[in-house]
């Protein structure tokens, strides 16, 4: 028996990701994370807990950091989604990404996409954040390797270099 027969008909939606429009056919229960990773193969967005706690699935929904694992794909058809793959412009890493590399922030790297996106959103809203604001913005993204210190340094550096 064809295993696809038992799947209910799905209707297609358009997702606007990193400035491109993708036609996808998610089930109702498919999260944005699922669609990004398994249907669009944009694997930069990670699955660390699937419960909305670790933040490795961070994407930007209309510029705001959000958990892709807690976002249903169907809820996003009228939004601008930015994933980590969308930060670079024409292959050149963004200031935030360059700063993270410059201060040697990445260790295992699994949290980095989420951190980079949160940092990007923060600097867009607040070009000169102080340490407390930076740490507050990062508070929803867990890292087990770095102790966060060099990630904060990178954001301070990016803020300075953006001037």
């Amino acid at each position, binding site marked *: 028996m064809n295993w696809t027969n038992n799947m209910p008909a799905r209707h297609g939606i358009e997702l606007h990701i990193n400035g491109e429009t993708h036609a996808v056919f998610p089930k109702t229960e498919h999260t944005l994370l699922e669609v990004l990773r398994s249907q669009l193969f944009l694997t930069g967005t990670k699955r660390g807990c699937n419960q909305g706690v670790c933040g490795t699935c961070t994407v930007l929904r209309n510029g705001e950091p959000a958990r892709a694992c807690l976002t249903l794909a169907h809820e996003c058809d009228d939004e601008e989604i930015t994933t980590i793959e969308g930060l670079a412009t024409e292959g050149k890493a963004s200031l935030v990404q360059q700063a993270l590399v410059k201060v040697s922030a990445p260790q295992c790297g699994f949290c980095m996409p989420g951190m980079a996106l949160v940092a990007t959103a923060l600097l867009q809203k607040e070009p000169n954040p102080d340490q407390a604001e930076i740490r507050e913005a990062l508070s*929803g993204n867990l890292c087990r390797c770095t102790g966060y210190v060099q990630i904060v340094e990178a954001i301070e550096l990016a803020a300075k270099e953006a001037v």
Partner: protein
Amino acid sequence: MQYFRPATLEQALALLADDPDARCIAGGATLVAMMNADLVQPSALVSLKGISELRGIRATEDGVCIGAMTPHKVVANEDRLTGRLEVVRMAAGSIGHPPIRSVGTIGGSISHADPAADYPTALVAAEARIEIVSVHGRRVIPAHEFFISYYTTALESGELVVAVHLPTPSQDSVSVYRKVGRADGDFATASLAFCGSFANKQCISASVAVGGCGDTPVRSAEVNEMLVGSGPDSPRIAQAAEVLVETCDPIDDVRGSADYRRLLVRRLLPRIFAQASQKVAQ
């Protein structure tokens, strides 16, 4: 599982009336996490995203009205929530982390009715009223009647929260929200909310609620009465704290033991009372 995105409240209510196993999706922070963990299997999802009348904060003749789909972040930044209503703002700002606060909504949060969550405690102390609608009509009930037990509210099948009403804060009213968790952004081991007003350093009205210490936010008319007429140095505060502790019914869980929760309530009520009285001085 079907997915609907109704454009009006009427359409949403009709869908819910039609299918008792359908669930609303507000911000999704709680519902999608539960779906991911296979804890719920709704027959259909009714998205509230497209219903603009559910969003936003507006002034009404008797106070402030927060639309059910208003995200925590917006409530946390709302300047009109002053005095006794500041506690709602403080609670909203304590929920989870920034990305959760961008999508989580007040309607979704209170409908989930986790007594360790931040809103239920603050809304009970602030004497909020919850506006509920269904195809059969509209009703408004006090917050403390809305929360019935763990994850259980007064919502009947087909009903939906549309707004939270808060009474106009009086000039001299103040409020404090204090949450104790294991780590930043955690649910509360115990939380205390105080709303009230002072004159000449004496309390003239008080409304206290405790979170994380029972199956709903804990409140006590007796405690509120004992606080009225007291200043921060009054021995009645400690006595009130004892009554409050006795009214609580905490359990042991990963966030702490029942004994620790009682200790926190006993020790923190005098602190937040003192803090509130100092806010008046400012």
